[in-house]
């Protein structure tokens, strides 16, 4: 039980990290971007590529960070991956979503994003192959915190949980305390009024994509660190991410984190009462229950 509880929180942290970026994009750009999950894959693979590059360049970088299974070169690679994924997101917007935003409803954008995710996922599959891979082939063993009740935890996972919390707080501060944050919030609430107040819509949208892409990259990296890289990792994650964002309430950063934890906990604790075969349905039943009580999610506001 204790272990399941912890597992849920740790798995949920990764989901929370991914859901923060998703909820931000959904809030600011006002459509359910199904290709967001592919940005997670893209970020993870960018990190893999640059890790290899840095690793080859310098021996010093191959050292591991204290406690973690992450090397310095991988840590640097993640930063580059964040920038590149953000840029890719902005470019995809330029090519596809910008035009649709002007001419069509949000549903058209949703399905365009489906199309985009098919393209991105399979390009990754062509370039990197379909097999799964890892940043580090050594298995990181869990530390036993307690034997009875059994509690096993990996340092990487604690790190990811802390990272999710730090990013949550940082992002919340940026959105509520800085004028860049005001700009993003303003565009999300009312793009026309934002323009009337001197906000450059195009630049803000690009900024939102950069931010969303960067967050996706770091979430993808964390997922891959804990599990594996595979071209379909985004596809596997997308539903849980949406579940987290929606349970939390679209647009709420805290909501996304809480939603991630809820979905993680739900799928972890569910196995205590139901057979594992039914597990995929669990997050969604949680959503149904949540929405039945709070139709706009836990922290969401009606539009």
């Amino acid at each position, binding site marked *: 039980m204790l272990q399941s509880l912890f597992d849920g929180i740790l798995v949920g942290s990764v989901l929370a990290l991914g859901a923060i970026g998703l909820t931000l994009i*959904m809030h600011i750009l006002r459509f*359910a971007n199904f290709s967001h999950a592919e940005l997670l894959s893209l970020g993870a693979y960018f990190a893999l590529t640059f890790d290899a590059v840095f690793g080859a360049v310098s021996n010093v970088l191959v050292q591991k960070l204290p406690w973690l299974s992450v090397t310095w070169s991988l840590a640097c690679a993640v930063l580059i991956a964040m920038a590149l994924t953000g840029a890719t997101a902005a470019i995809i917007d330029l090519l*596809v979503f910008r*035009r*649709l935003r002007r*001419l*069509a*409803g*949000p*549903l*058209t954008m949703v*399905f*365009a994003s*489906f*199309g*985009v*995710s*098919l*393209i991105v*996922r*399979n*390009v990754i*599959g*062509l370039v990197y192959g*379909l097999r799964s891979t890892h940043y580090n082939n050594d298995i990181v063993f869990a530390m036993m915190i307690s034997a009875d009740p059994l509690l096993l935890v990996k340092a990487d996972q604690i790190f990811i949980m802390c990272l999710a919390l730090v990013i949550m707080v940082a992002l919340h501060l940026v959105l509520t305390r800085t004028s860049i944050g005001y700009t993003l919030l303003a565009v999300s609430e*009312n*793009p*026309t009024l934002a323009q009337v107040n001197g906000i450059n819509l195009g630049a803000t949208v690009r900024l939102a994509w950069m931010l969303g892409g960067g967050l996706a990259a770091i979430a993808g990296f964390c997922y891959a660190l804990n599990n594996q890289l595979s071209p379909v990792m985004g596809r596997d994650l997308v*539903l849980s991410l*949406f*579940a987290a964002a*929606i349970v939390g309430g*679209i647009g709420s950063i805290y909501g996304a984190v809480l939603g991630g934890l809820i979905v993680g906990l739900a799928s972890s604790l569910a196995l205590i009462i139901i*057979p594992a*075969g*039914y597990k*995929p*349905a669990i*997050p*969604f*039943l949680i*959503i*149904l229950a949540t*929405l*039945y009580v709070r*139709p*706009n*999610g836990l922290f969401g506001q*009606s539009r």
Partner: protein
Amino acid sequence: MIGLISYLTFFFTIALILAIAVLGLNLQWGFTGLFNGGVVAFFAAGAYGLIMLGGPARANEFGGFDLPYLIALAGGVLLSGVLALVVGLATTRLRHDYLAIATFGVAIAIESVARNAEYLTGGAKGLRGFERPLEAWVGQPQLYSFLFLCVVIVCLVGVYIALEKLVDSPFGRLLRAVRENERAAQSLGKSPAHIRLTAFVIGAMIMGLSGGLYATFYAFISPQDIAPILTFQIWAMLIVGGSGNNRGAILGTLVVWGGWVGSGWALTAFAPASMQLYAGSIQYILIGCIIVFTLLARPRGLLPERLTTTQYAESSVEKR
């Protein structure tokens, strides 16, 4: 030539079966604004319902009542309707994204049951052994396929005419009123919740009919047939075709389904042999491109809903 006719018969059979489901979705989304993310749940209810009621008995398993075909088909459709009623009562008050994810969850739950509840649904290996109606009587397989296509066309035309009549009726205007402005509809003295639920159930029953025909055609159904990708395919057909327009929905089905399978055929026909192994991935990329480019070229679908442009434009600017 005979081969081509045989293939086209098959192609249109599947495409038009899917078109029926797309019409059902069009009633829900196009006319009423209900974002049903669980199309496949109602499709599955129709398909499984049919085979469970009309199939032969299976050892140690529920179902297999061997009922006459039409009763079994109606039973499947009814099952979809009942499922929609239960789901609808709980969810139709939700808006857009929230409704979509809730109904999506229902679809996943249904798929889980189909995959795991072996006693009820045959589990992952699916349900088989269903006798297609009149197949033995017709005898010749090609002729049977052709006759089956005719039956599908009759069903499609029937659903199309019924829906056109429905949306032109006062009830149809209410649907659009609910879609555009719930409060206005309320002020007309109608309960939007009731109207939304009615449209949801009718649309789901149409999807159930589509599922029933699908299961009849293959005489087999398994959890693989009701994967979430089907919901996506049906949605893509509607959006590409133009939601709010029944003819657009059918055209969209043919275009998306044609592009989906045609891209695979084109790759085997034109791509060099060395590339065949990668054709699967490339085909997906092509499918993605087809969807994205069609939407970029016709953002409101190939045959958009017939609205006066000024109204649309003004309201969309106003909304922003």
